[in-house]
């Protein structure tokens, strides 16, 4: 029944309307354990094996706050220039949903641990935009449902559902912006830049895996339009399911063009949750909120208030890492990059990963080489951000080290990277499993060289006669025979040595 809305041309949208954005980001913390129990906080695993009475919501079980999660929340708050509450409580948010074991979410309501902050973003052309942060609060994740039967594996048409609570109770920080106004045509870009900057910040803080593809960073985008010249916010929609940086930009842009078409048509916007479709970049309606949901919040009686002392907060302030924007400045100087070069790296999302690769021991030139060429190609092929590639900077640094010590040729190194990207394990494991070590055993190479020389006596004669460039044919034959696993330079040396030239 969903009628495909007509879309307004984007140029016309921004000529007639001012967009207002509100971004809600949920971050899964990478603590060892869950928010309120000692179950392991780990992605995946056999279903219902990281669960206990508390995170399963069994009768009688009680929550106990993970101190490390509170610490992470405060550090995130500080990094976002927030005030830290001197006293705050958890609250219960009551609503029924099968993937929520207690049928309430333990969250924070009117007393968030961090509030009133900001984050400065640098857009592609260098323009800086300040996004005001309303609050950052602690809560818990839900379980996961699998819908069985029906054609699509989706909720609609499913015959029954299967629930796994491994993720239930994983610590979340919800970061909410104040309404972002005045961004005009750049609203989609700002949305993307905000999530990117937040992701880089969280990665620098080392509090989360920040993997949008795996759901450890999730963004809900609220979008509304107001006719140019007016100041009253329009009715907003909230688009969920946006699980890549590119999608954030696309979803905002799509909503702007969709809403504008409706408004221009004299129709009204329905306040609702919408879902983003990766495939065609559109959004479709979810649950309609006719009246605001009554969550019946009240202070969580099972958890006592949190009152971070000044000393504790100051101590945590002392653990703030180098912020991404500071890091960029330093890197520019160290790598001797022009503003344009740095911006290209930033826009490619490569700075952090390169820096991390350098931190893991690789020379900066090699690190840049890998990330801006081969890995950028792979990311483009997969349609993901560089940082979302399933390879870590440490793994790239290891590959670079293997090349430097002569264990891999550049060609083999690319194969190793392919293996890591394919989930075959650490670089050394891939080398082992795929048998990619450079053949450096000279005796094996001597045999291959001798064989190649014997097979092409005329070429051997030419080399002997001083036509050293003819050695290429022999080297080629040896490389072919060793399936590329020999170091070509070494083969050439051996060929010349064998013919005694």
């Amino acid at each position, binding site marked *: 029944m969903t009628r495909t809305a007509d879309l307004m041309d984007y140029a016309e949208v921004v000529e007639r309307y001012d967009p207002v954005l509100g971004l809600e980001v949920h971050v899964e913390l990478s603590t060892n354990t869950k928010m309120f129990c000692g179950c392991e906080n780990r992605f995946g695993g056999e279903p219902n094996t990281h669960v206990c*009475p508390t995170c*399963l*919501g*069994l*009768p*009688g*079980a*009680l*929550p*106990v*706050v993970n101190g490390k999660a509170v610490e992470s929340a405060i550090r995130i708050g500080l990094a976002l220039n927030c005030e830290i509450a001197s006293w705050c409580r958890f609250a*219960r948010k*009551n609503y*029924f949903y*099968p993937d929520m*074991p*207690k*049928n*309430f979410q333990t969250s924070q309501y009117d007393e968030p641990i961090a509030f009133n902050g900001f984050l400065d973003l640098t857009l592609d052309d260098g323009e800086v935009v300040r996004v005001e942060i309303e609050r950052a609060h602690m809560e818990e994740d839900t379980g996961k449902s699998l819908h069985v039967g029906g054609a699509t594996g989706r909720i609609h048409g499913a*015959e029954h*559902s299967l*629930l796994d609570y491994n993720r239930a109770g994983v610590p979340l920080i919800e970061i909410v912006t104040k309404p972002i106004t005045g961004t005009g045509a750049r609203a989609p870009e700002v949305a993307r830049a905000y999530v990117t900057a937040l992701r880089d910040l969280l990665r620098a803080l080392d509090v989360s895996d920040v993997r949008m593809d795996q759901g450890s960073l999730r963004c809900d985008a609220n979008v509304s339009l107001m006719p140019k010249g007016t100041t009253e916010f329009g009715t907003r929609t909230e688009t969920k399911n946006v699980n890549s940086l590119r999608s954030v930009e696309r979803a905002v842009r799509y909503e702007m063009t969709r809403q504008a078409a409706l408004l221009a048509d004299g129709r009204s916007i329905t306040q609702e949750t919408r879902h983003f479709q990766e495939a065609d970049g559109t959004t479709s309606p979810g649950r309609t909120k006719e009246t605001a949901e*009554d969550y*019946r*919040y*009240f202070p969580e*009686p*099972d*958890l*006592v208030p949190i009152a971070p002392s000044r000393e504790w907060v100051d101590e945590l302030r002392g653990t703030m890492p180098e912020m991404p924007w500071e890091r960029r400045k330093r890197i520019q100087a160290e790598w001797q990059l022009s503003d344009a070069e740095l911006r290209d790296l930033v826009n490619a999302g490569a700075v952090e990963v390169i820096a991390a690769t350098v931190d893991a021991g690789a020379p900066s030139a090699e690190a840049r080489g890998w990330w801006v060429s081969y890995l950028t190609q792979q990311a483009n092929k997969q349609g993901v951000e560089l940082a979302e590639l399933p390879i870590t900077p440490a793994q790239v640094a290891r590959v670079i080290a293997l090349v430097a010590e002569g264990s891999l040729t550049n060609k083999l190194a690319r194969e190793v990277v392919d293996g890591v990207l394919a989930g075959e394990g650490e670089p050394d494991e891939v080398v082992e499993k795929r048998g990619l070590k450079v053949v450096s055993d000279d005796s094996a190479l001597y045999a291959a060289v001798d064989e190649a020389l014997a097979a092409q006596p005329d070429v051997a004669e030419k080399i002997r006669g001083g036509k050293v460039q003819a050695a290429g044919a022999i080297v080629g034959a040896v490389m072919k025979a060793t399936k590329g696993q020999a170091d070509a330079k070494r083969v050439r040396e051996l060929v010349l040595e064998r013919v005694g030239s």
Partner: protein
Amino acid sequence: MTELIKLTAAELAEKIHSREVSAEEVTRAHLDRIAQVDDFVHAFLHVNADGAVEAARAVDARLAAGDAPVSPLAGVPLALKDVMTTVDMPTTCGSRTLEGWRPPYDATVTRRLREAGVPILGKTNMDEFAMGSSTENSAFGPSHNPWDHARIPGGSGGGSSASVAAFEAPLAIGTDTGGSIRQPGAVTGTVGVKPTYGGVSRYGLVAFSSSLDQAGPCTRTVLDAALLHEVIAGHDPMDSTSIDAPVPPVVAAARQGLTGDLTGVKVGVVKEFGGDGYQPGVLRSFEAAVEQLRALGAEVVEVSCPHFTYALPAYYLIAPSECSSNLARFDAMRYGLRVGDDGGHSAEEVMSLTREAGFGAEVKRRIMLGTYALSSGYYDAYYGSAQKVRTLITRDFEAAFERVDVLVSPTTPTTAFKIGERVDDPMAMYLADLCTIPSNLAGNAAMSVPSGLSDEDGLPVGLQIMAPALADDRLYRVGAAYEAARDAAAGGSLVHKVPELEVTK
């Protein structure tokens, strides 16, 4: 009945530890008694004969090997309210919703009892999810008062109080959210203590109202209650509201009280608890008890706690609000009853059908009341105001405890009422907890100790003693002194006046 079941827990412990009798004999004597009278009393929802005997044998084996008893109550059996999780017994909370549910974990109280070598005889009956004052709200039928079969044994922990009064167990565990240990104690002539909130772990206590619930001892003597208190109390890292401080020296206080001297103790009589609505026989018993305290050397003054009259309405907002949230988890998805899963109904429909079928009227009433009180438009007027009343009541207690060491009042305005008398009148039922609720709201410690029988109906009356938070020991000193004086004056132990019960052959 054999002599063993008439003994106090302290006496049984002494005989077991000196190996005069075996723990197994003691446990079997109580199991036999349960087999004889529980058809009549209906204190138990589940009897754990094999498990209890096994635990008793383990105690005997250790003693035989020359080891010291693992606790002062090692070998003395106990009845556990069916609201505490147990891995080896069902935990139903008196509800259809949880019929037959076997938890995969033990409550901290359960674990402490096991570690103390206390054999658990079984699980006792209760009002569904501890909501009620009579056990009539149990899905499995009411318990009966051993003093009069036609009357209620109190609630919600009527099974625990009845089991102790009927000599089926020397010890029981209750939980007290608005009086569910003390009120049953009062109407069955037994001792019931609600420790300071946070004194006993709530981990594994199926929550009714989390900010009020507290587990405590149900016994026939004050000293027995103290011994049990020390076994179950103490800090538990699994409960964030558990107090990380030493357990008040309640056993020493009870022993001190038994010496019979209350000189220097200041007792405040709560002015607001008396007069209209109180049964005359209850008031006369209370006045006699106050005289007794004076005779023991206590200085008695009248104290006004003006906001105590707002405790009942505040309670009937806070408890239902919290219960509406706590009981949301009973949704037919992960455990418990499921109704209507026929392929046609959605999860949401199955939830509603199951909750409709699984919960009794009182539980539904309170869930809806709480849902209403927490709704955004009504929150401030109801839940918010109730929490302010909580502050006022706490201040009343603080002011009173600046003047006196303990406060006293009747535990409950009337003696045990007849089964069926108040079931259709929730407001009348709620009045049973009028005097007990303030201590739940403020979180301080309180005890009910029998003050004899009402002269008009011959039924037990309870004296409530209230002490500041973490001063639980004062209850025991005053309670034990009073108890000894009462029995001396009456020429015998009150609880032994319980009529002989009908026995199943």
